[in-house]
């Protein structure tokens, strides 16, 4: 297929879309890493859980689709808060490797739990059963045809990112989060309930992952207990590319990775089957030449 302008624009839209979804998930990794220096491997599974919440909100509890989505996002946030309380908080002063192993354990636990409760058979997240058919309509813009869903996903992603930036840079809790990321003990000296703020950080990152999961399932309408694995891994790579610990870095890394993946497949369709490998090659290159990522500060060991 020859690369014409309309096809390029089509791919550009897809790249932004995938990148935005990676960014939403990557933010959660980065926020938690920025504060606790912990890679929360269960993050991809919160993404999966959030999607199931939305699925059952519509199919079992018969909520309107938008309400089910909102409830699911809040549910994912609460799940993130609880994961921190149950799994990570007791290990706050333990060696970092203990938390890391716990994170892997938490990830396996959530996946197994999903298999037991929801079953291993994939569920369809397609319209009109889950959300209105309206979103699947095509819009003709000039010579490019784009699904309404694309604009919806982009719009929601943008809104969530704007909200997050406002929260982190303009609210008191956000200020405390930024303070904790450099110095936990001194932040406590200021009268901040550090454990509560860490819990809120988990909740917000997880809510974003839940939203990411739902939007992901709207685009790729298949819900299963392992659906969080690959997007979680990719988002983690995106966070590393951008500079893990930095929220802007997570966004940048997410968009870059999404764009690179789509464009590589578009320009080199022969390698489409190797799509997932690109992300890991990029990860290896980044780790070799700029391990702190594009926007990451130099990694300083805390004394």
């Amino acid at each position, binding site marked *: 297929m020859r690369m014409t302008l309309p096809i390029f624009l089509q791919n550009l839209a897809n790249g932004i879309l995938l990148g935005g979804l990676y960014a939403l998930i990557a933010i959660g990794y980065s926020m938690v890493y920025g504060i606790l220096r912990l890679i929360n491997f269960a993050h991809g599974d919160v993404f999966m859980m959030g999607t199931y919440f939305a699925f059952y909100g519509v199919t079992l509890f018969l909520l309107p689709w938008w309400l089910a989505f909102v409830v699911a996002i809040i549910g994912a946030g609460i799940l993130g808060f609880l994961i921190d309380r149950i799994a990570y908080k007791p290990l706050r002063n333990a060696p970092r490797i203990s938390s890391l192993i716990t994170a892997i354990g938490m990830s396996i636990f959530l996946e197994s739990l999903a298999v037991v409760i929801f079953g291993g058979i994939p569920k369809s997240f397609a319209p009109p059963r889950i959300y209105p058919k309206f979103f699947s309509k095509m819009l003709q813009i000039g010579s490019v045809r784009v699904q309404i869903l694309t604009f919806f996903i982009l719009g929601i992603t943008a809104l969530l990112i704007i909200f997050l930036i406002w929260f982190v840079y303009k609210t*008191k809790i956000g*200020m*405390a989060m*930024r*303070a904790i*990321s*450099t*110095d936990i*003990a*001194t*932040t*406590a*000296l*200021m*009268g*901040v*309930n*550090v454990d509560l703020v860490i819990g809120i950080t988990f909740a917000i990152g997880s809510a974003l992952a839940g939203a990411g999961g739902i939007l992901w399932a709207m685009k790729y309408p298949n819900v299963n207990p392992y659906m969080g694995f690959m997007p979680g891994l990719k988002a983690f790579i995106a966070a590393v590319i951008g500079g893990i610990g930095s929220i802007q870095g997570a966004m940048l890394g997410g968009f870059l990775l999404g764009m690179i993946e789509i464009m590589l497949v578009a320009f080199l369709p022969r390698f489409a089957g190797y799509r997932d490998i690109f992300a890991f090659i990029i990860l290896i290159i980044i780790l070799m030449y700029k391990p702190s990522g594009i926007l990451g500060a130099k990694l300083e060991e805390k004394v």
Partner: protein
Amino acid sequence: MPEKLILEIEGLHVYYGNIHAVKGINIKVPEGKIVTLIGANGAGKTTTLSTIAGLVKARRGKILFEGEDVTNKPAHQIVERGIALVPEGRRIFPNLTVYENLMMGAFNRKDEEDVKKDLEWVFELFPRLKERLSQKGGTLSGGEQQMLAISRALMSRPKLLMMDEPSLGLAPLLVKEVFEVIRVINSQGTSILLVEQNALAALKVSNYGYVLETGNIRLEGPSSELLNNEEVKNAYLGVS
């Protein structure tokens, strides 16, 4: 009438793992006074302040603040009761602006009008901070960072201000300024517990002093007496 005590420490023991850092000390801070702890490195001064602030757990003993037991309460509750710590090495937040650093100090306060007044008061003490409000804390010089650390602690409107080595690493002129500020803060009613290596300056500014040695109190007394004590002179004041 005996003096009213704002802080009273009874038989405090603190361990870091297996290290017995503080071995049953008693310290009293009368309301409105300046009390100083002097001693060599490793004597347990910083540990004592960290334990009062709630950052380190006490193994045994009691810490009473305004007559109430505050031993091993979490750090964020200690601040709310009215104890602030200017930690050793300033520990300002480098990624936050000067203004945000000050607001961190006032984190739990709801009285926004008074917070504004206190901000003005802090600018009177340290006019230079006002010029640097939107700058990141990490870009300040060492002296400015110390001023910010003191101001940040004051923003919680403490009844007891604890300062850990506020003059460490500062140029002589700034050291003088810091001790002058300590006097001013105290004259406005704040009780102060001061830890210093600069024993001479600390004893000169304070009312009462304790000399710590490997986790024990070796000597105590009114600062004027300690200044003339032969042992103190030899060991800490560098006079012989």
